[in-house]
Each structure stands twice: as structure tokens, then as C-alpha cells.
């Protein structure tokens, strides 16, 4: 191709085309953001309609009532889920970043972990139904917690690996030069240095699992009252309560479902913001 002399008319045409495409993309962005804002607006509007203190104090009833047992159930299942999933995920993430760094095995695990990260959560529910609910003979909060743990584990493994990799090698070299074994270097030097970031990952995992509905439908199922135990009988959860109430042909219960949705969304978004703030503080502390 030969070099063309500058063509002013041609340039105006190209610039106009570029501006038009700019505008189309901006419009697309506006459309997308407006749609999403619309959903948030509906959520707040309808959620506030059924909002009252009794939502947090009264258990579910077929009429009226609140969501206290569901909130309690979500806290317990998500808490136990994280208690199971976090150590496994952290250890796997540390393995990928430290012991197995660069090995073929680690890259296979990393690949599989990335797939588990977005695997259909309803299938995790089916899986846990077969390996926990059937052997135990009944639905239980414990089964729900196992399903949530399986969802939390890949999230935590991924964030832990990412953050542990960021710890400068000079830390490891310094520790090893002092005669520390790998286990000491990792547990006393590397992990404490990355702890803020690991915590961020765990917060994100809590946010991710506390809004999950599908894996709980066949594991902890649900319960209109407070569950007497984690191991026997169904246990309510906030997403399950929302799902159940949204399907009822009753305005009152539908409003309660919206309130539940507002509560869970505010909780999830708060956890996300919190994890961002902690991440920001940690990374600022490191750069100083």
C-alpha cells in the first residue's frame, strides 16, 4: 500500500463515523445501566412497602409474620458453609501459589477450580442431595451448608492464590535465608502478609453464597419455623423464603418476598463494599 496524502474530506467522514459509533456505544451503556437501575429502584420501592421491624423478629407464617427464622437460617448455613469451605479453599489457594507454583498438576487444579467457580449451582444442590441428604435420610441445614461450602471453596481458592502470589519473593527468600522450613515461611511470613487479601476473598465468598437459592432447594429445603437442629429436618433460608413467598397468590406475602430480597441484596452489596474497602486499605498499606 502506498502512502496517501492527507485527505481532509475523508478524515471528516471517518471522524463522523467514529463519533456515531461512540454515541451508539454510549447509548448501549446508558440503556444497560438504566435497566439495572430500574431493577434496583423496583427492589427498593417494593421492598420498603413490606418493611417493618417484625420482619426481623417474627418467624414465617402462612399469613403475616416475618422472616426471622429465614434470616437466622441463612446466617447459620452461610456461617457453617464458610467454616467448611474457607479452610479448604485457603489451603488449596496456598498450594497453587506456593507449593505447586508452575507445576502441571497445579495448572490442572487451577483450570478445574475456574470451572467450578461458575458451574451451575442447582447441580451442586443435586449432588449434595445424593451424598448428604439421602444417607442422612432427611433435609437439613447441614446439607445446605455443605452445598454452600462447595460454592465458597473455589471462590476462596481463587482469591487466595491471586493474593498470595502478590507477596514479594524477597519475603520468602529472607525467611528461607534465616533457615526456616517452607511450612514456617508460608504460615509465619507469607500468609500473614497476605491475610488482608485472603479475608477480602472470604467476604466475597460469603456474599456469593448467602444469595444462592437453587442449591438449597433440595438440601436444606425450608421450614416455616425455627429449625431445632442443623442435622434434622429442613431449615429455612432467606432466598428460599423469598422464592416461596413470591410464588404465593397473596399481595402481603409478595411484599414480604420483596422485603426479603431487599434485605439480602443490601447485605450482599454491603459485604462487597466492605471487601473493596478492606482491599483498598490493605493495598494502600503495602504501597506505603
Amino acid at each position, binding site marked *: 500500500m502506498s502512502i496517501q496524502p492527507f485527505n481532509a474530506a475523508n478524515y471528516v467522514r471517518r471522524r463522523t463515523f467514529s463519533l456515531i459509533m461512540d454515541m451508539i456505544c454510549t447509548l448501549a451503556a446508558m440503556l444497560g445501566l438504566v435497566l439495572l437501575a430500574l431493577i434496583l429502584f423496583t427492589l427498593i420501592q417494593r421492598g420498603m412497602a413490606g418493611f417493618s421491624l417484625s420482619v426481623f423478629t417474627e418467624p414465617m407464617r402462612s399469613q403475616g409474620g416475618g422472616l426471622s427464622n429465614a434470616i437466622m437460617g441463612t446466617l447459620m448455613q452461610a456461617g457453617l458453609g464458610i467454616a467448611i469451605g474457607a479452610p479448604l479453599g485457603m489451603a488449596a489457594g496456598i498450594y497453587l501459589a506456593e507449593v505447586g507454583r508452575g507445576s502441571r498438576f*497445579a495448572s490442572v487444579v487451577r483450570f478445574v477450580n475456574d470451572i467450578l467457580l461458575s458451574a451451575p449451582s442447582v447441580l451442586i444442590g443435586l449432588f449434595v442431595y445424593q451424598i448428604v441428604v439421602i444417607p442422612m435420610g432427611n433435609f437439613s441445614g447441614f446439607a445446605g451448608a455443605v452445598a454452600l461450602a462447595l460454592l465458597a471453596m473455589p471462590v476462596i481458592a481463587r482469591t487466595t492464590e491471586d493474593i498470595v502470589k502478590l507477596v514479594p519473593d524477597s519475603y520468602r527468600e529472607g525467611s528461607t535465608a534465616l533457615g526456616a522450613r517452607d511450612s514456617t515461611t508460608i504460615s509465619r511470613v507469607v500468609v500473614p502478609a497476605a491475610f488482608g487479601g485472603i479475608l477480602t476473598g472470604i467476604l466475597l465468598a460469603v456474599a456469593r453464597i448467602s444469595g444462592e437459592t437453587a442449591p438449597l432447594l433440595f438440601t436444606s429445603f425450608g421450614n416455616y419455623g425455627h429449625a431445632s437442629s442443623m442435622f434434622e429436618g429442613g431449615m429455612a433460608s432467606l432466598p428460599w423464603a423469598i422464592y416461596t413467598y413470591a410464588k404465593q397468590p397473596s399481595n402481603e406475602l409478595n411484599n414480604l418476598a420483596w422485603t426479603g430480597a431487599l434485605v439480602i441484596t443490601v447485605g450482599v452489596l454491603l459485604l462487597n463494599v466492605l471487601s473493596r474497602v478492606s482491599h483498598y486499605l490493605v493495598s494502600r498499606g503495602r504501597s506505603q
Partner: protein
Amino acid sequence: MSVSSSVDFENSRKFHLGEGIFRTILLFSALVILITLGAILTILFLSGQHAFARYGVQFLWLDQWDPVRDVYGAAAPVVGTLASSAIALAIAWPLGFGVAYFLTESCPRRLRAPLGIAVELLAAIPSIVYGMWGFFVFAPVMSSAIQPWLTANAWLFWIIVAALVGISLSSMTLATLGRSIFGRIVAGAILILALAGIVYLAVNRTDLPVLPSELNPLWWWFQGAPVGVGLLSAGVVLAIMILPFIAATSRDVLNTTPQLLKEGGYAMGATRWEVVTGVVIPAVRGSLFGAVFLGLGRALGETMAVVFVIGNANRLPDSFFAPTTSISALIANTFPEAGPDTMLQASLFALGFILFVVSFFVLALARLMLRQGRMA
């Protein structure tokens, strides 16, 4: 810790119990991830094997789901899953790219970070919220306004399709045959054909609905009772749900292009759009597809956003508005009532196995494409 004057080299090379246990625990946790994936696949397959044994591969295209006669086929939920995800992708892909382009190129610098964070936060909203919005807000609008308008103006949609197909086919012809006379003639013929189709549609637009549905697929796909829930509603709600995912990942991908390359483009006198299409996109094309496939993976397996709006009717969709079902919605609806060791339950597990395998390949492809751009 005190520094000893003589280091015991012999001892340091020996096996150390604590170190061994530590490494074993880490390795075990990494193995748990592999085992989980293997166990999910195995359990789903074993639990569904009665359905596979009874129907064989036919299970996939058996268009019946009748608990009374105890006959179960996967055609409707499989088609519903694929079709709703395809609609979602067709809407969310351009919008998501638009958002990503806006956030990386044309948005004022000061707004980039807050809007970017807003998009990422939207991706964290629980999917059941999207489902509820679809059911309580979108479905009524769909049945009262959108669907009647689409039914009356179906010809517009097919004109757009004809134009897009004509342009892309002719430019593909030019790209493969080159700008020879032969290539130009074929490309021109394709364009003329497309143009003829457009003219035909525009001239006959009011007559189209009169033709019988079996003969006129154009008419057929925009007909149906305005119930508000159905294939298109599910696709739209899914699109809104995966939009933040696609937008956030595409933005990260676009941001990986080295600044130097872009500056080189601008230095050559290229406009912003020319820099993006000529420099940025060729540099990150694989990763951009990866971002979209990641969104597709989410859409395929999504349960709560779909179950509210797809209509939960177990039959093949015969129009964009027809209530149908998807694998995940069918499982969520039917599984609690299916007794253990029944053919119904085995069929649901078999469907779950199919969904897992499909999303495995989609997500694996997404990761491989993202990794090409060193994003993964």
C-alpha cells in the same frame, strides 16, 4: 529464635514430620477441588443412568415429558435452555461490549472508576432478584405492550435479520474469494437477494399474518397468547442478569491492551473507533470471546432468574412468546416432588448431567480463550 553458630546441615535435609503434614494438607485441599468435579460428574451420571439406559441417545431429542405415562424426554428443556441463553447472549453481547467500550474509551475519566465499580456491584446481586423483577414487573409489560407490538411489527425484525445476513454473508464472500471479479459478482448477488427479501417483506408486511402458520415461519415466531412469561421473557431477564458479567469482564479485557499500541494507532491519525476496531480488538479478540462465553456459561446454568419467567410448560417452544422450560428450571420445579429411585428422578439427574457437561465445555472454552490474552 537465636542464631546458632554452627548450622546442622545433616539434620536439615532429613524428613521433617511437621513439614510433611503441612504439605499433605495443602495437597489434599488442592485434590479436593479435582475430586469435587469428578464426584459431581460421577454422581450425576450414576443417578441418571436408568434414564440413559432406557432411552439411550434418543433421550436428547425425545419430545415428551409425561409423568402419567412415565415417559421422559430431554428435547423441551434442552431446547429451552439453549434458546433462552442464545437470546440472552444476542442482547447482552452488544450491550455489554457497548458498556465496556464506554467505560474504557468514551466515558469521562472521572466517571470511569465509580461506574466500573457500579457495574461490578451489579454483578453481585443475587439472581433471584432478577427473577422476581422479571415476574412482577417485566412480564406484565411484556404481555400488555411489548408482545402486541412485536406481533404487529414482526416484519421489521425479519428485515433487520435479512439486512444483517446479507451484509455479513457478502463481506465473508469478499474476504474468502478476494476482490476478484468472481468474488464481487457472488457478493453482489447475495446483496441483491437480501435486498429482494427486504423489499418483499416491506411490501407484504400487512399480509404476512394472514398466511397459515405452517407455511410462514416469519409469522409463526411472533404469535401466541400474551401471557407475559415465556422464552423471550426468560431471554431478556437472563440478558439483564449476565450484562454486568460480560461488561465487567470485557472492560478488563479491553484494559489489557498496552497503552503504547493505542497511542501508536492515534499517532497514525486513526480515529477512536478505528483504534478500537483496528488495534484493540485484534489484540484481545480471543479474550473478548472468552468474556462472552463466561456470560453464556452463567446463562446456561442459571436457575432462579429463569424459573420465574420461562412459564414452566414442558413442551418445545413454537414461538418467541411460548411458555417453555429449561433444564435448571425443570429441576428446581420437579425435583422436590420426584421420589427417590423413580424414572422421573433419574431423568432429572440425566438432564443435570447433560447441563453439567455442556456448561463444562462452554466454561472451559471461555477460560482457554481468556488465558490466551493472559487474563485468566
